[in-house]
């Protein structure tokens, strides 16, 4: 009879657990260290008010990161998220009546209609990416780079160097308002995170996302429509970016070109720092939440200890590099781990 692989000597259960969970443990550990460090280094850091601050600062990034989590779980990438957020924020302003001094040839519509049309255009961007990646077969890295340029181009055409200030009421409320002292953006972000977690963990689609990321070939030979799954995650990513863009412009109070440029790196960093595998199939929303908090605490904490703002950029780069090393190393450890064929 066929026998079971005996556990290899030296592969103790604890070691195996640690190797297996490295991608989950490392980010949480990083977060704890950062919180402890900043709490000691600055008296103003460890307060309820600042906690709310951090949450609010990462909320827009968080909504983008939700979509990116789906994409990265399938081992694809979406570089167009920030550009789509930008163009969608501008689009919603384009459909809103602007003050007289804003010189934009726009098309004011009823608020609900404006939001609906904006979401539709966001969907169109997602479909464009999905089409390029799955039907034509352009690698997502390149396709989303092109879509990023296209989105930036549309943004430029719509605002022509101007700044728009007015948005539909519902967008303004969700983007800049609060309820019970908590910003709506935080609540929206939490809803997105919760919904994504539910979809990824409890639905058939979510399972397919993980399986496609885990072994695309095996998924296809198991009768999973891999292209459909990839197309879906690309559209989900575009929709999340679009919502983030609408709330983002209201959060900032204005819509203009290049406003979201830093969000691309932040959103990718949040997902990857959190421990979702760049090779797909491992990780999830839990990881993304930790990743968001690491980034949020880091950005916010560095402000509290009044560090050279240029050094801040360097430090973020180094933290990202360390996270990437852990991310790749965790995968290598797993693959060379105790079980082989």
């Amino acid at each position, binding site marked *: *009879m*066929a*026998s*079971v*692989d005996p556990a290899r000597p030296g592969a103790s259960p604890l070691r195996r657990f640690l190797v297996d969970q490295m991608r989950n443990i490392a980010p949480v550990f990083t977060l704890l260290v950062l919180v402890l460090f900043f709490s000691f280094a600055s008296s103003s850091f460890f307060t309820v008010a600042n906690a709310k601050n951090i949450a609010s600062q990462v909320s827009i990034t968080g909504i983008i990161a939700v979509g990116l989590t789906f994409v990265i779980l399938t081992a694809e990438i979406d570089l167009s998220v920030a550009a789509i957020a930008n163009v969608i924020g501008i689009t919603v302003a384009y459909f809103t009546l602007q003050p007289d001094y804003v010189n934009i040839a726009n098309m004011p519509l009823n608020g609900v209609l404006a939001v609906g049309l904006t979401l539709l255009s966001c969907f169109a961007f997602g479909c464009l990416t999905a089409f390029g990646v799955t039907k034509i077969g352009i690698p997502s890295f390149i396709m989303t780079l092109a879509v990023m340029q296209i989105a930036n181009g549309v943004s430029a055409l719509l605002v022509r160097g101007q700044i728009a200030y007015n948005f539909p009421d519902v967008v303004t409320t969700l983007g800049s308002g609060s309820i019970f002292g908590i910003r709506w953006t935080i609540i929206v972000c939490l809803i997105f995170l919760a919904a994504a977690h539910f979809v990824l963990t*409890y*639905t*058939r*689609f*979510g*399972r*397919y996302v*993980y*399986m496609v990321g*885990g*072994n695309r*070939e*095996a*998924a*296809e*030979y*198991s*009768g*999973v*429509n891999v*292209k*459909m799954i990839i197309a879906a995650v690309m559209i989900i990513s575009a929709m999340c970016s679009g919502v983030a863009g609408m709330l983002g412009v209201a959060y900032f109070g204005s819509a203009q070109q290049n406003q979201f440029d830093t969000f691309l790196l932040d959103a990718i960093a949040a997902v990857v720092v959190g421990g979702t595998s760049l090779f797909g*199939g*491992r990780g999830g929303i839990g990881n993304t939440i930790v990743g968001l908090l690491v980034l949020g605490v880091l950005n916010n904490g560095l402000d509290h200890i009044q560090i050279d703002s240029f050094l801040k950029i360097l430090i973020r780069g180094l933290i990202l590099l360390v996270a990437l090393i852990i991310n790749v190393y965790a995968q290598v450890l*797993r693959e060379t781990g*105790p*079980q*082989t*064929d």
Partner: protein
Amino acid sequence: MPEAKFAGGGGEGPPLLELQAVSKSFGGVAALRDVDFSLLRGEIHGLVGENGAGKSTTMKIIAGVHTDYEGAMRIDGREVRLRSPRDALAEGVGMVHQELSTVADLSVAENVFLGAHPLTRFGVVDWARMNAEARRQIASLGLDLDPRARMGSLPVGLQQLVELSRVLFSGARILILDEPTSALSPPEVARLFQVLRRLRGEGRSVVFISHFLDDVLEISDRVTVFRNGRKVVTEATARLDKEAVIGHMIGRHMAEMHMGEAADLAGDDARPVTLEVREASLGRALDRFSISLRAGEITGVYGFMGCGQIELARALFGKLPLGGGEVRLDGRPVRFRSTAAARRAGIAFLPESRRMMLFRAEPVYKNVSIAILGRIGRVLLKPAREREIAAEHARDLQIRPPQAGIPLGSLSGGNQQKVALAKWLTFLPRVLILVEPTRGMDVGAKEDVIRILKSLRDRGVAILVLSTEPETILTLADRVTVMKKGAATREFSHGRIAKSDLLAAA
């Protein structure tokens, strides 16, 4: 012709290359035992034997790929010990492998000179010289090719000749060709043979490894047969025929003794046809191939590696689009645009390698449920049900250990294979397609898989087994189609067939 065959060389002087009592083992398993082999000057020497008989191992020793062996090798009567393919080439031994190593996006001339482009005084590539040299080189093989043509635009046969010319150009006197005709059409084979005869005329020696016995008998002066790591015989081709070669390959006396050497087929034409393939074609892989799969039967397709089995299986599962022909499921024409569509129509598929069908990092139950998720819950997952199903299969298929929650990667290979099979068993498929279903499994797991497949057949599934191992086909099949270069050459549906019948038809 047969009389003239031997004229090129032979007889005079020591053999160009000689192996004496060569043995080689891989991790304690003997792959070659006491092999003597000689190659004469100006000779085309055919090398035949089943998979794993030792022909490739022998040639890799000669080509300097395997360096730790026992025994002696002599070239020109001088004892040599080759340490690398580069060493071998310095001694004039060049090998053309089965998989082309040409670069499709470079020109013919660049491929001929790959890695050794002639340079001008200024250190840049001397295109004029390179193209002229390449043209001369290729012309010497009797070909008229534009050296500037893109390699990928040439038919496979010509690409192979270009690669051949590269090996020749690097000074090889001994050419080893591994399965050179497997991808070639008859006219291309004829051209290759012309070239080989020309080379023989120049006094070079060729070792021609092939599964295609007709080709071997046509081109070789002498033939050496391997079986189970031993050389069985070296004989002048004139004194051999196909039957005799097959006899040497499988051993006359073993033929009747072992299971898997012969089988009684039980095809019944009264059974309804579930899946019918009519005149399917697909690039170079399938050539008007037809087959009917009947409910309650296992249909075997036997053929050598590269005969088109893999493509046939993928086309039937909606992974590759057919170029022409028709597929009918229960009498209705079908055309699957995705593997998901094929699955929904009731077709199940297990590819040839475990890596392609399993998720090593995921628990057993997710590996089992992946193909049936939609049937146990449209939108929401039902993990409890998934585990229950997986546990049931683990029990039925005797998967060890019978735990649905452990990572798949911690199971042995045979048990992983059973898990892969399990994913198609919760709901009986209409058609089950398997490529090399028992390859590389230990005996126990192999028997389990055979038992499972036979019980599925008895429950009315139409099963298609594609394999390059005759034993697999003979053990499982109720009817057999032999496939050669994309076409069906022979069908067996009842009566007793032996391994030699399969080999003779392929």
